[in-house]
């Protein structure tokens, strides 16, 4: 399929969905409070911007997200790589990881509040947990999957120390896997950001709770789409960077 053709179909799918939704809302079958039409998003955006709320909430959520993403990614990748490199460490973490991993990030909310209070740190902490585990496991798997023959080639050509092998083979070889983990974390982070703010930390989640309390469902929808927008932009930028780094792949 030609690229232009594919874009046209993708756009048609999205527009069709919005049109269908608008039609149902306008038909009066369902109250616009229960299901506000997409056309109500623009006016609510204008009013939220006029009151200065939208940019403030977007910025606050972005901050929590960015800090959580950074901390979770750095710790996850670093520990995942280290664990994969040392069999003893790997054995000692196996059960521990199995116990801690299934705990959803949101289950940490009580402790986040007790430890950090209703603060931005608490939100960033919760966001970082989900991102940490994704990166921890993908980085570990990526390092384990590095081609042993390439390590032999590097050794045959004189790169025999651990730092040299790490730099010349293991990290570049694991890069595609590590990057795909970072990208998965990028999406996971936006999913937890709203929940992390529901208990009163300033941001998109808190504003959505306020709006739903007032039955201002059109505002809720506005922020749902705002998150989609933020995710879309961050993923687009990430993929552009990733493609540059992995230019060597077909």
């Amino acid at each position, binding site marked *: 399929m030609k690229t232009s053709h594919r874009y046209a179909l993708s756009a048609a799918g999205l527009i069709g969905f919005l049109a269908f939704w608008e039609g149902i809302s306008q038909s009066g079958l369902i109250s616009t409070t229960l299901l506000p039409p997409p056309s109500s998003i623009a006016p609510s955006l204008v009013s939220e911007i006029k009151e200065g709320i939208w940019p403030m909430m977007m910025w606050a959520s972005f901050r929590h997200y960015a800090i959580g993403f950074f901390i979770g990614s750095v710790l996850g990748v670093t520990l995942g790589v280290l664990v994969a490199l040392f069999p003893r460490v790997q054995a000692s973490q196996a059960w521990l990881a199995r116990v801690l991993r299934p705990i959803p990030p949101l289950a940490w909310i009580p402790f986040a509040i007790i430890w950090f209070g209703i603060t931005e740190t608490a939100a960033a902490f919760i966001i970082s947990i989900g991102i940490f585990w994704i990166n921890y496991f993908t980085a570990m798997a990526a390092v384990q999957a590095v081609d042993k023959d*390439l390590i032999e080639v590097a050794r*045959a050509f004189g790169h025999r120390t651990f730092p040299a092998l790490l730099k010349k083979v293991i990290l570049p070889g694991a890069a595609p896997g590590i990057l795909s983990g970072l990208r998965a974390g990028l999406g996971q982070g936006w999913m937890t950001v709203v929940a992390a703010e529901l208990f009163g930390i300033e941001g998109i989640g808190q504003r959505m709770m306020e709006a739903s309390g007032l039955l201002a469902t059109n505002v809720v929808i506005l922020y749902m789409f705002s998150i989609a927008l933020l995710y879309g932009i961050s993923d687009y930028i990430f993929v552009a960077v990733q493609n540059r780094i992995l230019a060597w*792949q077909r």
Partner: protein
Amino acid sequence: MAKVIETEDLSVAFGEGDEHNIIFRKLNIAVEAGEFVTLVGVSGAGKSTLLRVIADLIPPYEGSVKIDTPRDPTRRRIAMVFQAANLMPWRKIGENVGLGLEGIEVSDEQCRERIQSTLDLVGLGDYGDRWPYQLSGGQVQRIGIARALAVAPDILLMDEPFGALDAITRTALQDELLRIWRATQKSVLFVTHDIEEAVYLGDRVLLLGGRPAHIVNEFKIAIARDQRRASNEFQQKVDEVKAGLIDAMALSNGAA
């Protein structure tokens, strides 16, 4: 002539040095300066393993390997060409060729010159800026050879480098290898399972067999190289080595 490689009662074992996993025992082989030696043998006899021990990638179990070539900080003494060239896919072709130059005493300028001249030598002078995935199997194998030549080694260890190639490409690369060998005066130890290839390329063919493996036979190839393909003598020599290999197989199976 001076011996550049000499193994002394070399034994190699896998596992924790367990006697039952001895691959070969008390192996004594030598390669002289400028000599092209080919090594054929029963599969599983440890041909590739022997190269890896000589290249110091696997430790010997007993005995030792003596390498007698001048030490020079701007070169590496031994370089290896692998069956699957295993280029680093994230390095451009030129950077792959330069892999062994990192860590020896060559300036960036010399490094670039050596990469370019070895690329020219294997006939891929314009390919330095490409990615490995853009090359064909034969081209990748040439880069594997260039990568080894770039470190200006005295000894070239080659582990079935043409084994995975189609017949036409293989023939072309054999001739190219001989041309390079004549031009560079390297000592070559070349492992192959293709007897015609062994007889065509070698000054001497070593036959590895038995269990544990040892050199069961050795054939001097005295035919002039430009007359090797398709001469009667060549065919006779190939048949002779083939017969030797069949005996060696019987020996391996009998001992098992």
